């Protein structure tokens, strides 16, 4: 089975593109929530092949980008605690906090290790019984269940030197916050594929119902996105607003019940601070009381110090879809993937990185 190349076939793409051009009459602005979608859109030049009626804006769907400096500073402070090993997914290494980055503290001697799964972090804890391992729990609903699973494993295997800094974020609440702010007028939403694989499509129902905005859950190949755009255009031209799934191979309306159960067992919702958006109620996850002994923030007495934001960086506005990377005075000048100023340039799924790397300003 060819799960990748089949979704990149140019003859199928050509058909979808012509159909979108034929169908689309009403000017519309669509947001792709997820950074993975942003990357696909730029990597394949999807904006260039859409009709002028359709305007795509990128959303806040990059977990690294939306992590507030104050939270990054907590991770950096934890790295300075004696005998603490920081275990993290690789994308976090380069992200600058207020004063430093994990990459820099690692070079200065902090024990920071890149892992590919939470179970690797657990193994590091087992292999280093005299040290404490802190896993940086940064991610959306996609990563939270695996972290919940690692905590349950640690509990079962009595691994007492494993901790999690839970900076998880939940997607539906932040979308509500963006829509309520009224800053960006949206006519359609491309809902995240991987997140929806966990939570299903129902959590997006309120957007179609309460805000009248058509929603399509999409996969990450160019044909997935084109199909999603086509379905959004069809809803708009028919005056409908529903939640549809263009990613049936990965998503069902009810989501992954087992993963949701794990998440609910270990975590409970809490307010979370989003870069550029501010505090959003019930948009974060904290450990339930029963599992609080795994909470790194409670276990270690850290003082991250005052938080600084970089002057001139408009990552916050970009994450809300209010500005594009090209509107930022730093973009491409002082802020590049080699020397990133803001997180949207650091993360491979950040809008600025995608825009810069794939030449968003390239035109036709």
């Amino acid at each position, binding site marked *: 089975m*060819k*799960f*990748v*190349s089949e979704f*990149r*076939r*140019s003859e199928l*793409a*050509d058909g979808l*593109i012509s159909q979108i051009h034929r169908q689309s009459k009403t000017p519309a602005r669509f947001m792709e929530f997820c*950074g*993975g979608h942003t990357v696909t859109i*730029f*990597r*394949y*030049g*999807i*904006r*260039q*092949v859409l009709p002028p009626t359709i305007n795509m804006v990128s959303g806040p769907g*990059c*977990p*690294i980008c939306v992590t507030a400096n104050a939270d990054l500073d907590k991770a950096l402070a934890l790295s300075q605690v004696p005998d603490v090993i920081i275990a993290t*997914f*690789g*994308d*976090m*290494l*380069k992200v600058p906090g207020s004063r430093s980055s994990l990459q820099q503290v690692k070079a200065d001697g902090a024990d920071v290790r*890149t*892992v*590919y*799964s939470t179970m*690797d972090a657990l*193994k590091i804890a087992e292999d280093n019984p005299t040290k404490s391992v802190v896993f940086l729990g*940064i*991610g*959306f609903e*996609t*990563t939270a269940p695996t972290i919940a699973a690692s905590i349950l494993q640690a509990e079962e295997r009595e691994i007492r030197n494993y901790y999690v800094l839970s900076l998880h974020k939940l997607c539906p609440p932040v979308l509500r916050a963006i829509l309520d702010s009224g800053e960006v007028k949206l006519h359609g939403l491309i809902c995240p594929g*991987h997140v929806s694989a966990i939570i299903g499509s129902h959590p997006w129902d309120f957007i179609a119902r309460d805000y009248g905005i058509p929603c399509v859950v999409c996969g*990450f190949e*160019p044909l997935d996105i*084109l199909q999603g755009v086509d379905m959004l255009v069809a809803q708009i031209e028919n005056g409908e607003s529903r939640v549809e799934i263009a990613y049936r191979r990965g998503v069902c309306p009810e989501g992954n019940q087992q993963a949701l159960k794990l998440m609910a067992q270990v975590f409970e919702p809490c307010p979370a601070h989003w870069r550029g958006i501010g505090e959003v109620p019930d948009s974060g996850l904290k450990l339930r009381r029963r599992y609080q002994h795994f909470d790194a923030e409670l276990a270690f007495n850290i003082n991250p110090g005052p938080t600084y934001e970089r002057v001139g960086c408009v990552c916050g506005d970009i994450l809300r879809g209010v500005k594009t990377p090209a509107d930022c005075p730093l973009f491409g000048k002082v802020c590049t*993937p*080699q020397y990133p100023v803001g997180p949207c340039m650091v993360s*491979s*799924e950040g809008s600025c990185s995608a825009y*810069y*790397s*794939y*030449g968003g300003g*390239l035109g*036709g």
Partner: protein
Amino acid sequence: MEGVLEDKILLAHGSGGKLAHELVERSFVKPLANPLLAKLDDSAVFDFSGRLAFTTDSYVVSPIFFPGGDIGKLAVCGTVNDLAMSGARPLYLSLSFIIEEGLPQSELNQIVNSIQKAAREARVEIVTGDTKVVHRGSADKLFVNTAGVGIIPEGVDISGDKARPGDRVILSGTIGDHGIAVLSQREGLSFSTRLESDCASLGDLVAEMLNVSPNIHCLRDPTRGGLATSLNELAKQSKVSIRVEEEKIPVREEVMAACEMLGLDPLYVANEGKLVAIVPAEDADKFLTAMRENNYGKGAAIIGEVRAENPGRVVMETCLGASRIVDMLVGDLLPRIC
């Protein structure tokens, strides 16, 4: 002498003393047998005439054994390929080991065996070498450094600054095989794949291309940083732009799938047995035919062309018919987190 050598490499094996001599004699000189090396003088001494190509590279791949090769084969092929990319016929290599104490002797033997095989296939000789053993933790099992010399035939003048507008860009086969094969073996990431590294010496392929015509403008082996980085280097050095078509670039389905899973782009994934050639348009088909006759060029394809506008830029026409920039690799390849 059987039984004198421990089954693990010890610090004493790098001391210059008796154990060190035994190690050199038994593990290197014997398997790599050639008269220049066997003299064990401080330098290898040989005659040659003509224009000389000289290169060096260090190998720190982890793990040291991977599907389709190991650090030894990689060290020979890598240096042979660097010579071949100047159009040189590779002749002699040096070989230096930095060994972390505790490396099993059997693993060292296995690596020296594959060095011997790779050198024989590439028709190069290992004529000088060195061994150091360092404390545990000061190296990761084994690091290898090789240098190499080769002779450039008359009339051949290949360099990264010679691409001209109108030239065609030829790629010798599928991209990303080596990087993904190695990644599939990394601790904490192991996934099962039948994919093997493409690690191979390209000296013969280049020689056969030069038989078609000495007029090859540029050659590059897209190793670290992948095809994207090589194309960018060539575009910048030659002050031209390079336009490639996504659909013409051969990528194995399993590489594509692994890249999707890991959040990588095959354009940036390392190759160890591929080359990209920039040749005059009128000769492109002849080069292509010759390349396809060689075992390591069977999958060769013309993937794009050189243009004058926007010098230094690499642009790709995507499968949707849109255009996008192909930038150089920034930093290290890291897996995605969501």
